[in-house]
């Protein structure tokens, strides 16, 4: 990524000072990249990167540990049938054996700890177009700390979809590498549907091939602490990155997503849209969206958006878009961020039509997420996600209401 690239910082023309941005080094991407844990300071709340994170609740992931090895990973088609080995290769390789360790390097201490703690990497290699999404089922095996490394690679020109589902109880540090080939069209969807009390930390390192399209979705619906950082760059011109996120925080939960989009090649496009709902005292979400447009990326078109819906008082949503533009010749670079409240008038209106308060909130959240899930544009995955979201919203609810919500 950025730190090793020789760049010539443009110098402003005194007659036209706005033609190029001010000459200054990037501030958005100055953090180290390393496989070595000791290259990163132990996180404290004073560090910008960690200021929103409840440090004491993730401290068990600050040093390399012996993984419990209780997490299971199974790969199949989404309908349960085995994958076609000719199209989808599934392998377990030692850490550091390609393709593991080929997409950039860990970007923070926890990511480096995850890398050094994991025993092996699970590799899903997409060699040819798939008929249906591939499902990587990750099941936690309990509360002893575990580490996992996943690698998803797609060959040039491949059209394929991968869904990674996390469930069960776990305390897990997980690293993910995603690399897509030239001209490929891939979607990767990560669902965090952990049991209460679970912890999930780690990072995704993403490389989008030249002229390739990647749709990267995060759906985080449960976990005591979930903190996932995503770092991405492009492998050539005209890449297209679409990052979607949906999250739901319950009382006392901390759900944090950090996206770092780097435009390092010309004419690439990126969209980052994250939407979250928070319910109850002490529910806390964090979204930090960084976008960096390097001098080497003219014609960049980028936009990031975060919307939060606070359902009940006492929840806190932190939302921080950061945009650093080092190239004046771009199509667009925008960001928007909001934290809104489900207001009393909306609630009263729905109630006055016979809808109880709890159902009214669900209806609103379902609609709030539904708009985003529809954008995923892959019917099977959108339907699958709405089922998961409904399951989350109707936890322990009446059969009749589940049916109502399931009918589109």
């Amino acid at each position: 990524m950025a730190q090793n690239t020789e760049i010539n910082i443009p110098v402003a023309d005194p007659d036209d000072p706005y033609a190029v941005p001010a000459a200054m080094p990037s501030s958005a991407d100055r953090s180290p990249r390393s496989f070595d844990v000791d290259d990163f300071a132990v996180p404290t709340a004073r560090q910008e990167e960690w200021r929103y994170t409840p440090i004491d609740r993730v401290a068990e992931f600050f040093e390399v540990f012996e993984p419990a090895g209780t997490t299971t990973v199974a790969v199949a088609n989404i309908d349960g049938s085995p994958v076609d080995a000719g199209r989808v290769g599934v392998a377990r390789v030692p850490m550091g054996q390609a393709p593991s360790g080929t997409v950039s390097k860990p970007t923070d201490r926890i990511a480096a700890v995850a890398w050094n703690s994991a025993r092996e990497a699970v590799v899903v290699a997409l060699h040819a177009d798939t008929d249906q999404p591939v499902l990587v089922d990750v099941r936690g095996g309990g509360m002893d700390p575990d580490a996992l490394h996943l690698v998803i690679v797609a060959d040039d020109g491949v059209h394929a979809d991968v869904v990674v589902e996390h469930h069960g109880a776990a305390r897990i540090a997980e690293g993910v590498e995603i690399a897509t080939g030239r001209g490929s069209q891939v979607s990767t969807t990560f669902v965090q549907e952990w049991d209460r009390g679970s912890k999930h930390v780690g990072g995704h390192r993403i490389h989008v091939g030249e002229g390739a399209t990647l749709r990267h979705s995060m759906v985080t619906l449960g976990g005591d602490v979930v903190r996932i950082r995503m770092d991405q760059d492009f492998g050539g011109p005209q890449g297209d990155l679409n990052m979607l996120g949906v999250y739901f925080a319950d009382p006392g939960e901390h759900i944090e997503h950090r996206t770092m989009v780097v435009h390092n090649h010309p004419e690439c496009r990126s969209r980052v849209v994250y939407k979250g709902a928070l319910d109850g005292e002490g529910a806390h979400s964090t979204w930090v969206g960084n976008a960096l447009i390097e001098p080497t990326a003219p014609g960049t078109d980028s936009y990031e958006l975060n919307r939060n819906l606070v359902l009940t008082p006492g929840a806190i949503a932190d939302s921080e878009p950061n945009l650093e533009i080092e190239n004046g010749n771009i199509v667009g670079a925008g960001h928007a961020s909001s934290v809104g409240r489900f207001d009393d008038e909306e609630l009263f209106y729905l109630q006055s039509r016979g809808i109880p308060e709890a159902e009214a909130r669900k209806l609103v959240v379902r609609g709030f997420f539904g708009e985003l899930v529809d954008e995923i544009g892959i019917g099977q995955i959108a339907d699958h996600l709405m089922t998961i979201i409904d399951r989350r919203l109707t936890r322990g609810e009446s059969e009749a209401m589940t049916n109502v919500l399931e009918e589109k």
Partner: protein
Amino acid sequence: MSTLQIKDLVASVETKDGRKRILKGVNLTVNSGETHAIMGPNGSGKSTLAYTLAGHPKYEVESGQVLLDGQDLLAMTPDERAKAGLFLAMQYPVEVPGVSMTNFLRTAKTEIDGKAPAIRTWTRELTDAMKRLKMDPKFATRSVNEGFSGGEKKRAEVLQLELLRPKFAVLDETDSGLDVDALRIVSEGVNRAKESTGLGILMVTHYTRILKYIKPDIVHVFADGHFVKTGGPELADELEEQGYDQFLPEGAGSESALA
């Protein structure tokens, strides 16, 4: 045959200047099939009465009773009141972004009836009801009231009235902001609902023009937080000619009592 009884209802609202009493002893009995027009000057408390009946949290009931067939409405949450058979058509229907009309209506219908409507008949019922109200079918897929014009919102309120089939409907200035055609379409919807379900209606209005389309059996004048006069339809004509001045406290402008 159902009865809605309001007995000595006193209610107040929190304002910047402290708690302010708006309803000062309201008494009214409405039976199924009856249409009551509630007329009065601005700020007399008509809308407060409507919202207090429906259970808006902003209004605090200090004393009095509201009974629907003997059931104590005031002890119920707004959704329970709706299930008991009360409907409030709002003057300013609220936009609920992200919730489609279709999902909203089906959820409301399920809650009111206690079971999900059969898909096939429900879809037809909805489509027909929208057609009669001359609503664009696209509205079904839009978010609740979002981006609707004033007239469209009022049609959507009457659409809900027709589909949810309450025992009593409070129409809070349903005529405001409607042009002549929309007023006729909306009124026809209310009349249809009354014909098919024997609905009892409390129609809060400022002007007499809606009374040409929805004929009241009884006309009440509401001023300073309570009913001050009750009569037949001819009372409306009298008000049209003489205005509300005679019912206002000495020296008070018609806006001064605004909450």
